[in-house]
């Protein structure tokens, strides 16, 4: 007779697990200290210089009918974001700030401390990312686990995966032994594009670095462009984390967490009973 048996497979190596959790802590703190820095001038521009009258994104306090409102502008659009962006805090103690106190490090307004945290963490972030990449390339993790196989790259397969994902049906059994093609694309986009872009655009905001590598900042249209791309990529990381955590939960919260902590992942296999 045949039956389903649960087997524990080795899912994540110890390097993946350590760099993953270190990244969780470091990126969270980078995000929060980054929002503190953003709050010092909560407006974004394209090009080399700030065109103060025409930011593409801005958060500010405006008086409307004698009442203070938090106003966010995006392109030509205007949103009332009172309590979150521009004007936030407990009633009676509201203050002018881009992002609210609960999102920034430190919670009070302190650009100097925010920068101190941000640049300390940036070194950790780069060291952690380099360790992961060096090990991933040398040890075959990138090639074996992250790059899609030829079969996975077939259009029919990709469409099929999108269809099953949309219905929250996740690969089971032997299919679950490796990352599916959507996972691979997403993870690669994060580790090979978005996270490195954060480092590059971050460096492009350093006037000392600009003088040494002047061509790099041109890729972003200048320093204010680099600052905008830095902000947008931070937003993409937040979007990724939200979807990632949601999918971790719906596709087996405990099994996934165990895999990222102990390395062991349970899959169901068809097995001939003795």
């Amino acid at each position: 007779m045949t039956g389903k048996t649960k087997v524990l497979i080795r899912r994540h190596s110890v390097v993946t697990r350590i760099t993953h959790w270190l990244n969780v802590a470091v990126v969270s703190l980078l995000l929060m200290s980054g929002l503190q820095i953003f709050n010092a001038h909560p407006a974004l521009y394209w090009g080399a210089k700030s065109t103060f009258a025409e930011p593409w994104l801005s958060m500010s306090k405006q008086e409307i009918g004698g009442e203070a409102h938090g106003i966010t502008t995006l392109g030509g659009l205007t949103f009332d974001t009172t309590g979150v962006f521009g004007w936030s805090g407990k009633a009676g103690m509201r203050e002018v700030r881009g992002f609210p106190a609960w999102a920034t490090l430190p919670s009070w307004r302190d650009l100097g401390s925010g920068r101190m945290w941000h640049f300390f963490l940036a070194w950790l972030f780069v060291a952690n990312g380099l360790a992961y990449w060096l090990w991933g390339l040398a040890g075959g993790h990138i090639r074996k686990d992250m790059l899609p196989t030829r079969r996975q790259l077939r259009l029919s397969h990709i469409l099929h995966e999108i269809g099953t994902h949309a219905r929250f049906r996740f690969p089971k059994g032997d299919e679950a032994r490796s990352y599916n093609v959507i996972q691979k694309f997403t993870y690669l986009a994060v580790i090979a594009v978005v996270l490195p872009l954060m480092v590059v655009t971050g460096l492009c905001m350093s006037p000392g670095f600009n003088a040494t590598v002047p061509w790099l900042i041109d890729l972003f249209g200048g320093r204010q462009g680099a600052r905008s791309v830095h902000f947008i990529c931070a937003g993409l990381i937040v979007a990724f984390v939200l979807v990632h955590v949601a999918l971790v939960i719906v596709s087996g919260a405990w099994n996934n967490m165990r895999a990222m902590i102990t390395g062991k992942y349970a899959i169901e296999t068809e097995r001939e009973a003795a």
Partner: protein
Amino acid sequence: MSTDRRHWLKGAGAALAGLWLAACDKLTQDPRAVRVLRRAETLTYRAQRAATDRRALAREFTVADISKDFRANGSTRPDSEAYQAMLADNFADYRLVIDGLVEQPRRFSLGEIRAMPARSQITRHDCVEGWSSIGKWKGARLGPLLDLAGLKPAARYVVFHCADTLEQTLDGTGQYYESIDLIDAYHPQTILAYEMNDATLPVRHGAPLRLRVERQLGYKQAKYVMRIEVVDRLDGVDESGRTRLGRGRGGYWPDRGYEWYAGI
């Protein structure tokens, strides 16, 4: 998921987030943690000095790039009587003092400074807050000026004492000052600007003289420079044990938690 469980999860999540935030705030106020975090600044400074070309020039722009809305931050009009008197007199009595660890302390009038080796440059000014403005500056190169006084072998830093008081304090540490190392002091783009956008440097941008050290952030570009002092250390103390320069971190903003090396 049951409602109970969802509530529990939500509560636990909020509690964890609250703890996380409180822990970060606590660390920010803990001198030991701050000491560890501050080490990264030294690492950044050393890494940039080691890995980058010390003579590399900051990008120079064209006339068309000049900002029409160049912001003025910090002091925009020093309120001391001495400064007001000099301003009323169009800085006729102004003398730039160069002293400290120099062979020959010097005093220069504005006319003398204008007659010295000059440089014009259209550069981007990056405020620590995040914005940038582009302006044209003309001024005397700092290097030749220092050479006229002659640096003593122990010289390590150049300190700029300014006319403006940004914060009223009892011990005088609210007086604006800044400092740079000798690499930046002798960098070809480091000038004491007396012109901005082809006109006499306006008061809000630092008249009569403003430092331009183009590979660092805006707060290093000291305005209203009155005296240049050459020193061997920034945290030196006098006989009574008081820090000689501000609070000993090399600048008004560095004394208040900002990086001394603002090339980042």
